[in-house]
């Protein structure tokens, strides 16, 4: 028996007072189109608690579960914990090096999430060498990937679908369109390595507003850049096949 689970996803909505309610209007028939909604970070513009309250209202009481990670904008006011807490109070699952399993669309869907960070991609990435600032940059990039790997490892073996949710890009395929000079600030090949090691069915990220929607990891995991300026829509929907596991 096979069926599909429908994953709606979008990132980089950058909600502030001037656009509050706009995205909610685009989610009016979400329940008819999707089984869950992933938010790939940069939900606010400046990462303030006031903006987080707008975000919480935007996604409260939707007909499907909502799972989010934060992005770099959501950290700008140094209030990321309070932002995440505000969103959780509204019923969103906010992941950071953590995972969640949901029953959605008749499937057990495992989602591991982390913001991720820059570092770059194999052959042209930063390294843990030199000035303290450079080492801190490289270490945060590496630690972010380790956090995602740990979250993926924590998913039960029997989930039907395994999804990685990040803000930063795990591959450079989806950065095509962005100036190459800034790619090391847009993603991190070690995120892709973690996704491949876990055998994910789908990886979703945002951050690259001028990038490309579709990409692949070296092992062939589908990667989708769901930054809203890339989608030109309220969200995208990906239908993932679910093959029922044999009893016993």
């Amino acid at each position, binding site marked *: 028996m096979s069926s599909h689970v429908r994953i709606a996803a979008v990132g980089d909505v*950058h909600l502030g007072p*001037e656009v509050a309610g706009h995205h909610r209007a685009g989610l*009016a028939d979400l329940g008819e*189109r999707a089984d869950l909604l992933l938010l790939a970070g940069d939900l606010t513009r400046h990462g303030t608690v006031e903006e987080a309250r707008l975000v919480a209202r935007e996604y409260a009481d939707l007909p499907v579960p909502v799972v989010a990670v934060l992005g770099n904008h959501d950290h700008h006011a140094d209030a990321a914990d309070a932002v995440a807490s505000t969103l959780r109070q509204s019923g969103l699952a906010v992941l950071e090096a953590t995972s969640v399993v949901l029953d959605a669309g008749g499937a057990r869907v495992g989602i591991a999430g982390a913001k991720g960070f820059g570092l770059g991609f194999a052959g042209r990435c930063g390294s843990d060498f030199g000035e303290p600032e450079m080492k801190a940059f490289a270490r945060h990039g590496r630690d972010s990937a380790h956090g995602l790997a740990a979250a993926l490892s924590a998913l039960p073996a029997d989930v039907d679908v395994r999804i990685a949710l990040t803000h930063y890009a795990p591959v450079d395929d989806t950065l095509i369109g962005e100036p190459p000079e800034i790619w090391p600030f847009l993603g991190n090949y070690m995120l892709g390595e973690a996704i491949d090691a876990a055998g994910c069915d*789908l990886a979703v990220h945002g951050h690259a507003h001028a990038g490309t929607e579709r990409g692949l990891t070296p092992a062939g995991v589908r990667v989708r850049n769901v930054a809203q*300026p890339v989608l030109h*829509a309220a969200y995208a*929907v990906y239908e993932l096949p679910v093959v029922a596991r044999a009893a016993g």
Partner: protein
Amino acid sequence: MEQPQTGGTGRTAPPGVYDLKEIERAICEHPDMGELGVHLSVHGDRIHVQGGVVSEAGRRAVLDLVRERCGTCEVVDELDTADETLSVPPARSEELR
């Protein structure tokens, strides 16, 4: 930023590359904007403002700042705003086989 005048046109000379980078940085770091995706370039005596901003209010704020910093140079608005499509449901889904 002092604006030298061009001869007889009534317009100020366009800013240099480093001046444009300073303006891009100001747009990025301005507490009311935080727009990281705006790029400025000079072609002839016109300043082209390209990239994406969140909203029409963001577009106005960016253009106001550019005009304020660039004297009477002609500013060409080529910005996209994301909120035009924020309420648009997807046309179709993608089946991942």
